[in-house]
């Protein structure tokens, strides 16, 4: 069982060593990675996903419970303690959603096939367009693919560490995803440009030029700010869903959203 991940420093894009001595993420902790595009956010979580041992572009090392993980843990998916949702919104495997999930469940050592239906059911909570068991994964829309992969990470990946790369960009129901994965006792890392997600996490890692610039612990004031922002965000989502379904903005909606 993973209780702790430790990230040891690597080098930034011009070869200068990162300033921190180590970053520790503990079970139950939520973390966001923020910074401009190209600052190294995705590279940071990819290092975690690969359990890097100085053999990635950044030269970082990642320890599990304070120890170097063995090769089997790094390379065998059914022992891998990490699930990652990348920014990919495309699948190349010529399989139906059901077959795709069934093979993945096998890869993760899950014997019970009911997980396949459960995953598709959960995915359909994240997206407005329904995914069917026999939908080919190659023709799913961007939002459907992301929803399916998020649901897959939660139920089939079912790992103590979940890494999410910009889930807000997927056109899926972010609030729903957040609700399900918060308070699970897992280590959850969000790469994000979304202020709501950034403020809902306890720790913020700021990236710059390929390196960690600083680590900020959320203040009490920021907790209040997060909940205020969440209210705004909900109103924005209502308007977004209206527009997406071809509805008009009404008087009441304008006064409510500006209130």
């Amino acid at each position, binding site marked *: 069982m993973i209780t702790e991940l430790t990230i040891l420093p690597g080098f930034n894009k011009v070869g200068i060593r990162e300033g921190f001595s180590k970053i520790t993420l503990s079970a139950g902790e939520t973390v966001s990675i923020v910074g401009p595009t190209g600052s190294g956010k995705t590279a940071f979580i990819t290092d975690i996903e*690969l359990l890097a041992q100085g053999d990635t572009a950044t030269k970082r090392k990642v320890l599990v419970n304070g120890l170097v993980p063995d090769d089997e843990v*790094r390379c065998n998916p059914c022992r891998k303690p990490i699930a990652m949702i990348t920014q*990919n919104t495309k699948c190349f495997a010529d399989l139906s959603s059901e077959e*795709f999930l069934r093979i993945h469940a096998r890869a*993760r050592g899950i014997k019970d096939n009911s997980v396949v239906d459960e995953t598709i059911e959960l995915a359909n909570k994240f997206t407005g367009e329904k995914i069917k068991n026999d939908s080919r994964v190659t023709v799913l829309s961007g939002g459907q693919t992301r929803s399916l992969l998020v649901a897959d990470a939660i139920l089939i990946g079912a790992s103590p560490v979940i890494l999410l790369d910009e889930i807000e960009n997927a056109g899926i129901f972010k609030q729903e995803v957040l609700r399900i994965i918060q308070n699970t006792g897992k280590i959850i890392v969000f790469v994000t440009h979304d202020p709501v997600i950034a403020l809902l996490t306890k720790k913020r890692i700021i990236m710059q030029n390929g390196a960690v610039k600083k680590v900020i612990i959320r203040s009490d004031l920021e907790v209040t700010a997060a909940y205020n922002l969440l209210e705004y965000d909900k109103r924005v989502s209502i308007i977004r869903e209206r527009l997406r379904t071809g509805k008009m903005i009404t008087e009441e909606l304008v006064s409510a959203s500006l209130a």
Partner: protein
Amino acid sequence: MKLLVIAGPPSSGKTSLVKQIVKKMKHDMKIAFFKIDVVKAFEDVELNKEFGILARKFISGDLCPDHASVMVLGDAVEWAETNGAELFIVESAGLCLRCSPYLNQGLGIIVLSSIAGIHAPEKMGCMVTLADIAVVTKIDLVSQAEREVLVQKIKETHPDLILMETNALQGTSLHRLYEIIRKSSDIDAETLVLKGNPPLGTCTICVGKKEIGWKHHFGVIQKLDGQTAEYLYRGE
């Protein structure tokens, strides 16, 4: 001398992988590189220029490239040994999937791209099933779930394969591969034979003949240096 035979479909990342291996290991051992291709090959010049290692190529032209490889590999091993190579890397053309270029000694590596398609591992037959190691490349282009689905498919095709995933342009997560190469045994050139059969039933001259080196074969034969018949060879 240690031997690596690298196979895989065109554009799967074989040369990128070779470059990472050479970059990592050229300080520890003298490396020779040999590329077999059908029409054109640039890898020998590229590798020689970038890393200053011994490199040469063989263009099979009209001949099946795997048959060509069987013919010239004996000479090529001798060339590498004569030049004092401690690691000899052979990169095959890897085209028709009816046979595999791996030998009974050294390591056979299949390079597969993450975006090659889910049925690729099964379709590639002995190029996968006779390999010792599979390296899955371009992992930055697909989701983790899709990578794991492909890896599972490869495992089901060949359960004993050692699997690794990499972004070969960056050389991600290849430490284990370097370690396996370092620990691999030296070859004995006299007892080298193919692991699998040559293209079965398509070439009555080579069918069943696992011996490498042109002196064991008859019919349409080529040596590494020069050719036996003017009219048979229209490569580069």
